[in-house]
């Protein structure tokens, strides 16, 4: 048993972090926000070139993808990253891997289906229990929302979603959901870590009553709670990645993925709001990125089922013997 990243995994993580610091520094992300919130084709091509979408085809596993998506979440990179990554693997949509095809995903809901980044999509995949359905974005009639919750996640309200053309069956849909949950949880973990860095930096530098606010226990304990939630989430997220790769002594993939999505989802919301709290009045401004982390956490919580949904599902599995992790 070994839970430590090896040199290759560290190299992958560090390499991607350094790429993102160069290509997607927070200033660049804010510029994307000013330009409407969706990444440009050039951005997408850069992400493709580094291998974000083709990772799995190149022989890497879910754990490797988890490390990559943690960094994407940390850097607040916008766009349908998980959907395009999944579309480059199974079933293969031509162009998804090299970034020429921007693929989005949506689960239908009533009375309205909220589609993200619609204007930039080449293909919209509708994820249903009975399969994946491809919809041409130009055929989707909807109302572009003027003020999306997250300015980096533009949304369109769709009241009549086309059925689309079935491209995969229930098994692939279930696999997408499972992978999607884990990769989203990795991005949520990244949001936690970015929120902690930002809050820590501010707590060290901001002075009141003649000393840094980070020296007050009341503030320290907020930061300690952020780190605690993030590290518990990290264990759950990495463990889920390893479980999906078949390198853990457990067979309940669903529960492993649910645990990751619940823990990372709740942690990202907690870290985001606590980062705002640590910043005081500044935390409530548009200028400070704390709001961006919290808002993205709100968006990602809705992807592939929110934490409440999965907590209920986890409970149901308790009584149907669907859990195989040790004594649980």
């Amino acid at each position, binding site marked *: 048993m070994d839970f430590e990243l*090896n040199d290759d995994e560290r190299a992958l993580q560090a390499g991607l972090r350094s790429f993102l610091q160069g290509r997607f520094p927070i200033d660049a992300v804010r510029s994307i926000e000013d330009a409407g919130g969706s990444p440009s084709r050039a951005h997408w091509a850069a992400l493709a070139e*580094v291998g974000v979408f083709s990772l799995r085809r190149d022989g890497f596993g879910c754990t490797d993808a988890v490390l990559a998506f943690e960094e994407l979440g940390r850097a607040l990179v916008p766009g349908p990253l998980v959907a395009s990554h999944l579309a480059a693997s199974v079933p293969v949509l031509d162009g998804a891997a090299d970034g020429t095809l921007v693929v989005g995903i949506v689960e239908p809901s009533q009375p309205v289906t909220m589609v993200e980044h619609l204007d930039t999509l080449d293909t919209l995949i509708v994820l249903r229990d009975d399969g994946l359905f491809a919809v041409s974005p130009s055929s989707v009639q909807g109302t572009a929302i003027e003020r999306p919750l997250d300015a980096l996640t533009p949304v369109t309200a769709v009241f009549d979603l086309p059925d689309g053309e079935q491209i995969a069956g229930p098994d692939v849909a279930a696999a997408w959901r499972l992978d999607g949950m884990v990769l989203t949880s990795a991005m949520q973990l990244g949001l936690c870590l970015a929120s902690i860095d930002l809050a820590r930096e501010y707590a*060290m530098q901001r002075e009141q009553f003649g000393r840094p606010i980070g020296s007050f226990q009341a503030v*320290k*304990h907020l930061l300690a709670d952020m780190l*605690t939630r993030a590290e518990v989430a990290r264990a759950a997220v990495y463990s889920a990645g390893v479980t999906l790769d078949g390198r853990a002594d457990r067979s309940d993939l669903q529960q492993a993925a649910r645990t*990751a999505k*619940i823990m990372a989802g709740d942690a990202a919301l907690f870290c985001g709001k606590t980062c705002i709290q640590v910043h005081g009045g500044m935390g409530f401004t548009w200028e400070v990125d704390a709001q961006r982390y919290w808002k993205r956490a709100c968006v990602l919580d809705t992807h592939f089922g929110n934490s409440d949904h*999965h907590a209920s599902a986890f409970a149901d599995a308790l009584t149907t013997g669907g859990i195989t992790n040790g004594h649980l």
Partner: protein
Amino acid sequence: MVLRITRADTRRAEFLVSDGASDTVGGVDLQLTDAERGFRDELRAWLAGVIPGLPAEAHRNDWPARRKYDTAWQRMLFDAGYAGVNWPREFGGRGATPTEHLIFLEETEHARAPYVGQNFVGLLHAGPTLIAEASAEQKAFHLPAILRGEHIWCQGFSEPGAGSDLASLSCRAMRDGDDYVITGQKIWTSFGHTADYCEMLVRTDPDVPKHRGITWLIVPMGLAGMDVRPLRTMEGSTEFCEVFFDEVRVPAANRIGAENDGWRVAMVTLSFERGTAFVSEMLQSMELARDLAALAKRITRNGVSAWDDAGLRRDIGRACAELDALWALTKRNISQAQRTGLVGAGGNVFKLAYAELRQRLGDLAMHVLDRASLSIDDIGELPTHAHVKGRIHALSLGIAAGTSQVQRNIVAERILGLPKDR
């Protein structure tokens, strides 16, 4: 800078190219190795053979009988080669890796083997300290007796005036010839009324900064001038004692380390933690959590079961997911200890999260039991004892071995590097 992540970029990927093997090379791997499986199977077989023949557990208030029960189990472990499973081989232990220690704790819990009980301080605290700091004679005398279950140890660290601020302890030891003469009081001394020896921190120099005037002593129990008074906890039981010292003479030869170097000796002990401290607890909590779902279906009020309450059900699901995550964190901590010899930040993080979660789980159990929670004892076939006692026990988790507030200070200052507020 453009970094293309391709197969050729990493050693694992190269392996994939050259061997065409699946992705099982290196990196995070939570499966047991063949050696670990072998250790587990051997232990499992031994447990299956001995557990059915164990005597009945002693009554909770019959301390002499409980001592006999705990030490008899320790002797069985010793005879089978499982005593001090994580102690180094040269001192009579099995030299198990942290992962093997985890397996030991998992398997003993699974087999419902007796707990470490009164052997706790000797095996997990005093023993490791002696291994690190004691003289050859001290080791030769004490270590085998701990492993064989012949000596029970207790701990005399905390005092009424020295809790979170342990270094401010004031129990005085004056040097008089070849003896120390101890006067003062200790508190929270688990098993003080059944122990043979006490690992003790005493004030040997009151005129220097507090950390520099402390000495670590082995104190035999039952000496003249010593008064042990059981301390009843909110559970109604008396695991803890207060110990009063009135000019108790202890040979200076019982000192571990140098005079006034006791704080360092005590801190060395803390570094022995390998991430396994809460494994048995965690396993019990996971089992209670699963039982809770079944229990919630059985207990009804006005014809409606607790399980029919979607909110309660979701809360239970969330608590179970968190236990699942903390189990992953436990493995991560143990892995790190196996690699580096230290748990590091993960230990503080785990304790903070677990103390909070265990309370929440306890609250849920009380809600599920509803009126049945008014009994600490089992009611017929209802397993109220485990849940209600567990709920009460959970209140101690954020207090014992460093309060959650102290843990948060440690996380904030040592891990996040925030300024000290002193």
